C-alpha cells in the first residue's frame, strides 16, 4: 500500500494525521458550510451585519418553508424529475442495445461507429446549439420537457454506449457461444443472457446520468424558458431574482436544488463511483 499505512508510523504522526483529517475536511467544505450557515439565519442577522457570528435565531424551518411554499421551487424540482427520469430510462435502454451490438458482434464499421459515439460525446455543446434549438423549435417542442428529454437521451447515448460496450466486452463470451450452440435466437440472448448480467452497469449508469442531467444548465436555458418546463438549475436564477439580496432564502434555495443528486450519490455511492472510475484501473 502507498503511502505507508499510518498504523506503521510513530504515535506522533498518527495523532497529527487524525487531527489534520477533520481540519482538512472543514477547510475543503468551507464555502459550502458558509452557505449552510446562511440558510438557517433570520433576515435580521443580515440587516444587522451579523454575517459570521452566532445566528440570533435558528430559522431552518422558516427559511426552507418559504422556499417550498412561497416560490416556484417545487414546480422546478418537479420539472427536473420529469426531465431526468425519462432521460435516464431512454439513454440506458438505447445504450443497452447499442452496447450489445458493438460489444458482441463483429461486422464492418463496428469500431468506426463505436468511435463516432465516443467522439460525439466530447464535442463542445455550442457546436450543436443552433441546429438543435432550430430542430426543437420547428418540431414545436421548444420550451417543453419533451424537447429537452429527447436531446438529452440522444447526447447521453454517446457516453452510455462507451460504457455499456466496454462492460459487455468484459463479460465471458463463452456464455453467448454456448447459447448460440443451443440454438437460442439472438434477441433472446440479449434479453435472457446478456441483460441480466448488465445489472451492475445499468445501476451505475442510471445514477451517473441522473446526476449529469439533473445538473445540466446549458441545455435548460437554450431549450426552455419558463416555469412550465424549466428544471431547477435554470429556475434557481429566477428564484434568486425573486429574493434578491435575501441571502438566507437564496442559500436555502440552492441547497434544496442540490439535494436530490447529493442524496442519490450517498444512497448509491458504490455504483456511482464504480461508474465514474470505469477504466481508471486496467
Amino acid at each position: 500500500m502507498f503511502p505507508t499505512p499510518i498504523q506503521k508510523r510513530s504515535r506522533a504522526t498518527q495523532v497529527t494525521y487524525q487531527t489534520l483529517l477533520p481540519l482538512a475536511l472543514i477547510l475543503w467544505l468551507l464555502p459550502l458550510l458558509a452557505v449552510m450557515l446562511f440558510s438557517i439565519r433570520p433576515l435580521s442577522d443580515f440587516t444587522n451585519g451579523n454575517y459570521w457570528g452566532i445566528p440570533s435565531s435558528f430559522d431552518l424551518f422558516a427559511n426552507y418553508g418559504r422556499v417550498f411554499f412561497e416560490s416556484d421551487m417545487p414546480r422546478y424540482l418537479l420539472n427536473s424529475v420529469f426531465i431526468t427520469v425519462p432521460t435516464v430510462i431512454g439513454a440506458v435502454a438505447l445504450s443497452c442495445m447499442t452496447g450489445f451490438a458493438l460489444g458482441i458482434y463483429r461486422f464492418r464499421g463496428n469500431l468506426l461507429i463505436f468511435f463516432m459515439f465516443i467522439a460525439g460525446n466530447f464535442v463542445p455543446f455550442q457546436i450543436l446549439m443552433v441546429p438543435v434549438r432550430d430542430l426543437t423549435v420547428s418540431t414545436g417542442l421548444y420550451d417543453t420537457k419533451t424537447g429537452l428529454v429527447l436531446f438529452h437521451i440522444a447526447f447521453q447515448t454517446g457516453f452510455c454506449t462507451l460504457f455499456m460496450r466496454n462492460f459487455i466486452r468484459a463479460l465471458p463470451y463463452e456464455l453467448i457461444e454456448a447459447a448460440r450452440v443451443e440454438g437460442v435466437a439472438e434477441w433472446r440472448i440479449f434479453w435472457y443472457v446478456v441483460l441480466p448480467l448488465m445489472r451492475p452497469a445499468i445501476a451505475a449508469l442510471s445514477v451517473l446520468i441522473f446526476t449529469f442531467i439533473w445538473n445540466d444548465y446549458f441545455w435548460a436555458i437554450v431549450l426552455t424558458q419558463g416555469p412550465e418546463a424549466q428544471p431547477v438549475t435554470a429556475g434557481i436564477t429566477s428564484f434568486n431574482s425573486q429574493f434578491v439580496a435575501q441571502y438566507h432564502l437564496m442559500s436555502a434555495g440552492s441547497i434544496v436544488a442540490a439535494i436530490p443528486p447529493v442524496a442519490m450519490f450517498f444512497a448509491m455511492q458504490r455504483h456511482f463511483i464504480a461508474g465514474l472510475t470505469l477504466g481508471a484501473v486496467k
Partner: protein
Amino acid sequence: MTPATDTRSWLQKNRMTVTPLLFLLPGLLFFVVYVISPIFQSFNISLYDWDGLGEATYIGLDNYRELVDDRAFETSLWNNLKWLALYLLAIPAGLFIALFLNQTVTGIRLYKSLFFFPFVLSQVVVGLVFSWFYLPRVGLLNAVLTFFGLDSINVLGDPDLATYGIIAAGLWPQTAYCMILYLTGLNAVDPEQIEAGRLDGAKGWKMLWHVVLPQLKPATFIAFVVTIIGALRSFDLISIMTNGGPFGSTRVLSFMMFEQALSEYGFRMGYGSAIAVVLFLIMLVFIGYFLWQMWRDEREARH
C-alpha cells in the same frame, strides 16, 4: 417477390449482420439527428448572416474575418488558454488529496465521500456558493482576510482577478473528480512492486514517481481527458458568477458564442456558429489525441 421461406433463410443466413444493425438503429438514429448532423449544420450556418428567423444570406468567410478583429474574441481565446492551463492543476491536487486519504483509519470512507461530493453538486450551485464566498465586505473570504488584518478584495468585480476566481471555483469539483480516480487507481496498485521498491530503498517522492505513478497511468489518462474537456466546456460557472463581466473580462469562447447567438447581444446565429466552429476545432485536436490513444488500447486488447 421472393417466397417467404427464402426471406427467412436470408434472415437466418445474415442474422449476424442484421441483428447488430437492428440493435444499433434506434440509438444511432437519435445520435445522428441530435449530435452528428448538427456539427455539419453548424459549419454550414457559420457561412451565413442569419438572425435565426428570417432569410439567411450567404457571406462566405466574412464571419471568420470579423472574428480576427473582434477584441471580445481575443479575450475569450486567452481566457480559454488560462482555463486549460490552470484547470490541469486539478490533477496533481487530486492526486495529493488521494494520497492523503489513502489510509485505513476509522471513518475514512465517510471522509472520502465528503471530500468527493462537491463533484455531485451542479455547477450552478457551485457558482452561487463561490460568488457568495467571494462577496465584497461580507463574503467569508473577505471575513477571513480582514480577520488576519489583510485588505479585502473584490474577486469577481476586478477584471484582472475575476477569471482566476471562477477557475478556482471550477477546480473545487474537478479536483474531487481527479481524487476519486486516483483513489480507485491506488487501490489497485500492486503491493509486491511497492515492497520491491522499498527493498531497493525507494521512499517518498522516488517511490511515487518511479513505482506508483506508472501504475496509475490509466487513471491519469482519464483525469486528463475529463479535465481538458471540462476546461473547454466551462460555461455554467461564468454565466452564474459574472455573466461574462466585469467589462467582458471573463468571457470564454463557449460563453461568447452563447451571447452572440442567443442572449441580449442578439441573434447572430452565423457569427455564433463561427465561434462554435473555432472552439470545436480546438477541441478536435484533443479529441483526436484521445481517440488515437483509445484506438491503440483497443488494438492491443485484440491481440
